[in-house]
């Protein structure tokens, strides 16, 4: 009996693994990964190279925030319209702390990122706790209102946060002796200092060191998210999203798993927000406003809620597209440039089109998991009928 079970199980796993290879898709993904990997060093002319590096860096940082948002909106199905609250809490916490004299020790940068994330996570729990019973629209509205309250607080309490103008000019970022972002500040340039490429050219607003640090953090985020997805926790989230009542009937404590999601989401949004603040060398409510949440959400929805590669691809599309739209295009003698704020017009159209024609997003989560090679021993201690 056990033996036949084992045989049919193994046959099934073999069948499931025999998927037709999709060369084009694999090649595109490989190309994308390669480009991200050499982000600051794309073989372009110096002027475009640093611009491209900048766009890549922004996309990498926003991907972290988007993955944070995804762990609430994508996994539990609750629409969060206030991710900006956690990004800004993370950013302000980290930058305020980093300015303190007693924060000057090797590795302190990582510490402030972590503290920024944890502080955001705490507020994630505080916001989440009273809203556990809310569903759908009401939850979305509360998240939105909370974010506005946070924004008003930041704008008003100038002694702490610099008020409407925000903070500028952070000290140089120094990680174990490596200078990641120079502390010099050039005029009204929003970006911090500059970085000279070893082979000529200058990148305003970023360094290769900072880029790779952000990339490593993104990769860590992805690993954490994959591991969560493929676990008891992830299954609980997907089950709740599909049907709360039967998830509860399966023994899932809805409150606990929502709180996990809230905390995790806020944590990553906080870390991403902190990185973003340092990258731009300015944190202000002009950056962290309602539309920040909307554009992050736009990336998540566009890519496919709940799908990690989808969310990252969506974020790269939205921000890449958004940044590209900033560029002047010269056709003959005519200079075309899209008005800066009007880029949102395209986001609006994009959101509507994607929702109408592809409600699951461009790269939706594949419902059926890839089979894992687990050494299954039968007669599992969990298999029991009757007591």
């Amino acid at each position, binding site marked *: 009996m056990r033996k036949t079970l084992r045989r049919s199980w193994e046959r099934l796993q073999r069948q499931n693994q025999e998927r037709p290879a999709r060369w084009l898709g694999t090649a595109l993904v490989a190309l994308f990964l390669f480009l991200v990997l050499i982000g600051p060093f794309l073989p372009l002319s110096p002027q475009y190279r640093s611009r491209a590096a900048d766009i890549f860096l922004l996309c990498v940082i926003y991907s972290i925030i988007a993955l944070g948002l995804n762990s609430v909106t994508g996994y539990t199905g609750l629409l969060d319209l206030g991710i900006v609250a956690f990004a800004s809490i993370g950013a302000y916490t980290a930058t305020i702390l980093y300015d303190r004299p007693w924060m000057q020790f090797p590795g302190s940068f990582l510490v402030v990122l972590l503290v920024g994330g944890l502080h955001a996570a705490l507020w994630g729990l505080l916001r989440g706790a009273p809203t556990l019973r809310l569903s759908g629209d009401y939850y979305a509205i509360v998240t939105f209102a909370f974010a506005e309250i946070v924004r008003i607080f930041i704008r008003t309490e100038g002694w702490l946060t610099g008020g409407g103008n925000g903070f500028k000019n952070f000290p140089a970022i120094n990680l174990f002796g490596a200078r990641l972002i120079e502390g010099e500040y050039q005029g009204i340039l929003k970006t911090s200092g500059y970085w000279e490429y070893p082979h000529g050219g200058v990148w305003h607003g970023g360094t290769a060191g900072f880029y790779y640090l952000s990339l490593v953090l993104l990769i860590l985020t992805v690993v954490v998210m994959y591991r969560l997805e493929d676990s008891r926790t992830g299954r609980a989230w997907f089950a709740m999203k599909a049907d709360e009542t039967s998830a509860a009937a399966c023994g899932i404590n809805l409150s606990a798993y929502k709180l996990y999601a809230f905390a995790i989401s806020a944590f990553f949004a906080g870390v991403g927000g902190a990185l973003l603040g340092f990258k731009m060398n300015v944190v202000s409510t002009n950056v962290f406003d309602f539309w920040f949440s909307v554009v992050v959400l736009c990336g998540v929805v566009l890519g496919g809620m709940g799908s990690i590669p989808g969310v990252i691809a969506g974020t790269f599309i939205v921000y890449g597209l958004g940044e590209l739209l900033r560029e002047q295009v010269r056709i003959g003698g005519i200079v075309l440039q899209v008005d800066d704020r009007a880029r949102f017009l395209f*986001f609006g159209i994009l959101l509507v089109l994607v929702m109408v024609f592809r409600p699951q997003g461009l790269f939706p989560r594949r419902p059926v998991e890839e089979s894992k090679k687990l050494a299954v021993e039968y007669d599992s201690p969990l298999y029991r009928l009757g007591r």
Partner: protein
Amino acid sequence: MDLSLLVNQIINALTLGGIYALIAVGYTMVYGIIKLINFAHGEIYMMGAFFGILLIGAGMPFFLALPTSMLLCAALGVLVDTVAYRPLRRAPRLAALITAIGVSLFLQNLAMLLWSASERPFPNLYPAYRIRPAGADAQRYGEELLSRYAQELDRRREGPPRIKAIRRENGTLLVEFRLGTNSFEAIRTLRQSRRAVLAALEAAHPGVQIETQEESLDHFFNRPAFVLDLGDVRPVEVRWKVPFIWATTILLMLLLETLVQRTKMGKAMRACALDKDTAALMGIDVNRIIALTFAIGSAMAAAAGIMFGLYRGSGIGYRMGFQPGVIAFAAAVLGGIGNVRGAMLGGVVLGVVQVISTAYITDWLGISSSYSFAFAFGILILVILLRPTGLLGRPSAERA
């Protein structure tokens, strides 16, 4: 406490509350019928204000521009429903909500592209000026000055700031420009004419000591309607536009109430909100009723937009829909979403809360007055958490 200030604040609060109520009605009706938070509703309000000032600017009288703008917004609302929301009727609610955000983004930025990013003033509804001779020789040469002035202006009658009428009125000259003239152009024309007239007068009578004074005249809306003498420090002056806004708001609300409660259409609307399948069994064209709901809600929002512009006199910009939109939504939730009377009540309550908290509460708590919006949001959160059915909403006894 300053009593006149308090009365002023109350008038302010009620006016603002009425405007919120007009917007909130649209949220609540749409939510009631298709369970969608129409995030783009604030943008419809903004569009209404823009349509209004553009129409008035093009020379349309105010009392025609108001209904025209309402009609245009009604059409816009129906268009948005048809293009963006109708394909998603059977889709998950989240998809529709995100679409609504998309529409909101789109409209906001469309407005910015079409009408620039800077805020605009509400047009001068009565671009008229009274010209009065002044100076030592005003008695002697005043009449002549005014005739020359009139001639000069008459010559410019066909020029860009079109002059509607030039009249002599007991020793002064009254110049009316066509509606929609922006005051900058009008004043420039007057200044140029004055220069010419004074030069000519100087040539005819050397050494004449005369000047002119141009005084801008207010539209009836801006004139004081009545003055409340409170026996306090200073009397409170109420301008005509305030009772006008109140009357219009109340009239629109009564119309809406009659429409929803008495007409067949309104009953069909309520029937659709309760049960769409059964409504279809009665032969009701559900999609048309939904479109109609959008139309009515959008028209109300347009009226609110114009009222706001009239009241403030400025602040018409592409971002103007965001905050009132959110507060009006809060008002709809406060009153019990889906409940039209609740939305009216909620709007007024939140208007009062906002004004009072700006004026008094934040001061009393010793915090900045910029927290007054936070109060509105705080109330929204509390209502959602403690009484999601709102003030007038009925808790429904659902059986699973």
